[in-house]
């Protein structure tokens, strides 16, 4: 159901922007459609490698290892382990959040779980491989990832400071 809504919004936006392009003139529409299609053709092999590859990489990283890292130890070492675990978590959002929830039930501290979720959002290797690297200039992706390094720790620090969640 939510997939359907996503598709409607997505293709709706394409239609609206396409209409605006068409109003600017036929050449604008034709040029952008050709550009977009070329981008698509160029990206398909990368996405193929990403989708199929990420499945295999995920298969060799067992989830138990991740939850082990997220164990009920706390403090900054726990935050560091949580951040590494977030980046190494295989699979999509279901797995990422489920492991976070499992860790929370197993007694991990909220700041550690916040660090885990933030690190997962920033660095999850599957999203990097499957989406970010194929679409963005490689230089941007590595730069973005490097600049984001402090932020799981910043998030954990804020969580510790305000005593939430």
């Amino acid at each position, binding site marked *: 159901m939510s997939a359907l809504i996503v598709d409607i919004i997505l293709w709706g936006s394409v239609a609206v922007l396409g209409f605006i392009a068409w109003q600017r003139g036929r050449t604008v529409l034709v040029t952008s459609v050709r550009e977009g299609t*070329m981008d698509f053709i160029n990206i398909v092999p990368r996405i193929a490698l990403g989708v199929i590859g990420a499945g295999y990489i995920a298969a060799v990283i067992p989830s138990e290892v991740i939850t082990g890292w997220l164990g009920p130890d706390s403090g900054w070492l726990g935050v560091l382990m949580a951040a590494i675990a977030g980046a190494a978590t295989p699979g999509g959002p279901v797995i990422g959040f489920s492991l976070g929830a499992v860790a929370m039930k197993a007694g991990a501290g909220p700041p550690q779980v916040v660090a885990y979720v933030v690190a997962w959002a920033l660095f999850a290797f599957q999203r990097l491989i499957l989406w970010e690297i194929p679409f963005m200039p490689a230089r941007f992706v590595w730069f973005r990832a490097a600049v984001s390094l402090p932020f799981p720790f910043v998030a954990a620090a804020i969580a510790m400071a305000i005593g939430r969640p």
Partner: protein
Amino acid sequence: MAELPLKDPATADADAADTEPRPGRIRKPIGWSMIVIAVLVAVSVVLVWRRDGVDGVTEILTTDLELFGGILPRVLAGCLLGAFIAEILPHEKVSRALGPSSGLKGLLIGTAFGAILPGGPFTVYPVAAALLTVGADFGAIIAMVVSWTLIGYGRAIVWELPIMGTDFTLWRIVISLPLPVLAGALGRFVYVRIYRHGAPP
């Protein structure tokens, strides 16, 4: 600089972004990142094969091919979206709003844009790449991408809320609010120091 219909047939590489009127999109043949990924994948395939045999390998392949087929139409939509944005948006306006000298305002616009952008990775990354080619700088686009991953509502509502609970999700988002702007600012700070001497190699 505004006359862009000039199509460069020789797809200028992305590195000429600062000088080309219509800078190249990411149409490079396989780069180093893809080679590294391919090697990683090959190693993983061998590991899966040794552990689960040929059946394990084909099982993952079937699932992933299905996923791949399901994703493709959305990827096409994302690419078209990016192309339309690159073509429609006036480049001077983009550089003013999201360019290197757009200041805090540019970072805030990037953050807001990332937070409200509908869809998934198949919209964010093509649109982000398109904005980069029409004059946005790394800082603003970092703010946008980080904002999408951290405070974008789509994933929070669909996945995080039901799995992690309302309390955790809301506080996690509140904590994350300043991060996109901080990441973008740090990005700009580092960028001008690394690439002090004009365009990056």
